């Protein structure tokens, strides 16, 4: 394998909050020491429950937030603290498919205008070139015949078509990497697969790397090479997709896999083991392992005493849990 496209090390993103006007200062530690790598043309998934920090991680990597600590290396260049001007290059090389596409599209712009805007911002002055790029992007996301779509407004498009437009916008500058934040969770099952296949297709066509953010473990199996499981701002497990699904190690991952149903009539006769409770808040997370209050394998005096470190349990399979030393 060549050197990775993206390398993230011990990344932290803390949001400052105040309780009340003169209250004590505190931090929401939304991303708290995350490391990962993404190779060229690779797709990885970040999976976790609501509020665990997935969107913040994606946006921090894209430098839409200023990182609190850690390192982001992209194509060998440290971009962690680049200023806005120097970042322009990075913005062209990366794209974001926002969570909630319905809020993401400006209602009074046509499809053409929506796609043209980033091109203008990034100084593509030649009108013909802009047009060519717009056509190429629309073709890429299969909004064809193009003439049927180019002058439409977002509300005239179905949910799936809107999502394809959002994706078209994210690839219009021909980036090397995109963060796709829950790109299909608002869509119906029958359209989801179409959009995910489209992303896969773009990956090969544009030599694109994809960071796929989702709370839905069942789609990752088909669309990513590696899975990172995120819990309360930490990566608690990561491995190649097949390995992780066949041989999950972390009790949280195991719980997730155990409760996600496949369509099967015998499900209705089974009461499942499910950890109770809810994920912790990120202002004052539990000491020790953050999953410890919900963990079926909880070991008193160990799990609540000290934070486990992320260790390599077998080749390429990492886990952050005291069960594995």
């Amino acid at each position, binding site marked *: 394998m060549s050197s990775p496209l993206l390398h993230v090390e011990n990344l932290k993103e803390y949001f400052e909050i105040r309780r009340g006007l003169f209250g004590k200062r505190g931090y929401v530690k939304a991303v708290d020491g995350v490391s990962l790598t993404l190779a060229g043309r690779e797709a990885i998934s970040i999976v976790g429950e609501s509020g665990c920090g997935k969107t913040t991680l994606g946006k921090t990597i894209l430098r839409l937030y200023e990182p609190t600590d850690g390192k982001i290396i992209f194509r060998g260049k440290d971009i962690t603290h680049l200023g806005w001007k120097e970042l322009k290059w990075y913005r062209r090389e990366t794209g974001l498919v926002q969570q909630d596409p319905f809020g993401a599209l400006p209602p009074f712009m046509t499809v053409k205008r929506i796609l043209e805007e980033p091109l203008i911002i990034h100084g593509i002055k030649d009108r013909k070139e802009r047009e060519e790029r717009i056509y190429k992007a629309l073709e890429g996301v299969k909004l064809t015949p193009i003439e049927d779509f180019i002058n439409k407004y977002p509300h005239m498009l179905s949910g799936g078509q809107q999502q394809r437009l959002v994706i078209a916008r994210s690839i219009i500058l021909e980036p090397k990497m995109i963060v796709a934040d829950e790109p299909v969770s608002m869509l119906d099952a029958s359209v*989801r697969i179409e959009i995910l296949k489209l992303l896969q297709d773009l990956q090969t066509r544009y030599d694109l790397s994809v960071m796929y953010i989702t709370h839905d473990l069942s789609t990752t199996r088909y669309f990513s090479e590696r899975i990172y499981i995120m819990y309360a701002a930490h990566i608690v497990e990561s491995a190649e997709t097949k390995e992780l699904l066949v041989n999950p190690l972390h009790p949280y991952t195991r719980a997730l896999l155990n409760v996600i149903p496949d369509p099967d009539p015998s499900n209705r006769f089974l*009461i499942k083991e499910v950890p109770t409770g809810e994920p912790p808040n990120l202002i004052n997370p539990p000491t020790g392992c953050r999953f410890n209050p919900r963990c079926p394998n909880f070991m008193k005096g160990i799990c609540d005493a000290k934070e486990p470190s992320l260790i390599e349990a077998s080749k390429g399979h990492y886990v952050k849990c005291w069960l594995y030393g």
Partner: protein
Amino acid sequence: MSERHLNIKSLVMYYRTLRGEVKAVDDVSFSLPKGETIAVIGESGCGKSSLAKSIIRLLPRNVSVYKGAVLFNGLNLMDLDEETFTKEIRWTKITYVPQAALNSLNPIIKIGDQMIEPLLLHQKMSKGEALERAAKTLKAVGVNEAFLHHYPFELSGGMKQRVIIAMSLLTNPELMILDEPTSSLDVLTQANIMNLLKNIKRELKISMIFITHDVSLSSELADKVAVMYAGQVVEFSDAETFYKNPLHPYSQKLMESVPTLRTDKKLGFISGSPPSLLDPPKGCRFADRCPFIFEKCIKDPPIMHLNEGFYAKCWLYEKE
């Protein structure tokens, strides 16, 4: 068949809008034995919530057509006047958890006060009696009775959903209608709620109409399945048959698009989109997306009965 607990016959409900009539529920029939659960599945906008509202008779003002029959223990609910219906059926024998009910709790009224209101209003219970009932029901759904004195904003999403389910259990109903009861919850919380619903079904023998767009999740409760497409039930089946061998071409394509964790399968999708309910096609409503389309499909397929009252609405199942 006739003594079925719930028997819905040719139910129709249209909305009047500026652009025309929305045929949201268009000739729907199915039945359900006592104590069983029917899952109503289908994609966004196919009419699931409208079907629920037609059964519980919570009709928006702009409803223009409402006809057919909803037989409940042999009684046609559509014949009852509003007063009798409110007194004897809605929120008593049949309860309803609307879609997005999580947001329907009033954040500044204590849980206890919100829970007992219908008991005071419809059941004429005393306040003490009602609070006692509320405490007991909360416990049954796994919420500490101390929460009676808390406000909704102090509760997590999962706890709120439990409270809402408790509210729909207060009157010992015979039938619960649950519209997407877990769709905004996290996977683990969702699984906890599904366990709760299974226990309710098992121990209290309450019949349920479970509405969801999630095919995999529907198999967690369903004894029977109704698949809706463009305002119509296109397949009515029992769980054992349906999850292994869906019959209607739409059901088959839908099943193909469901990713599975435990088996390798080739995923498919349905290109195109469902027709507008303002002016649906005269023939089969799935025809322009159907891989099996043939000459007959330009005519509206009738319900083709298979065994035991189950059916598919598709010309492929016409008997010679």
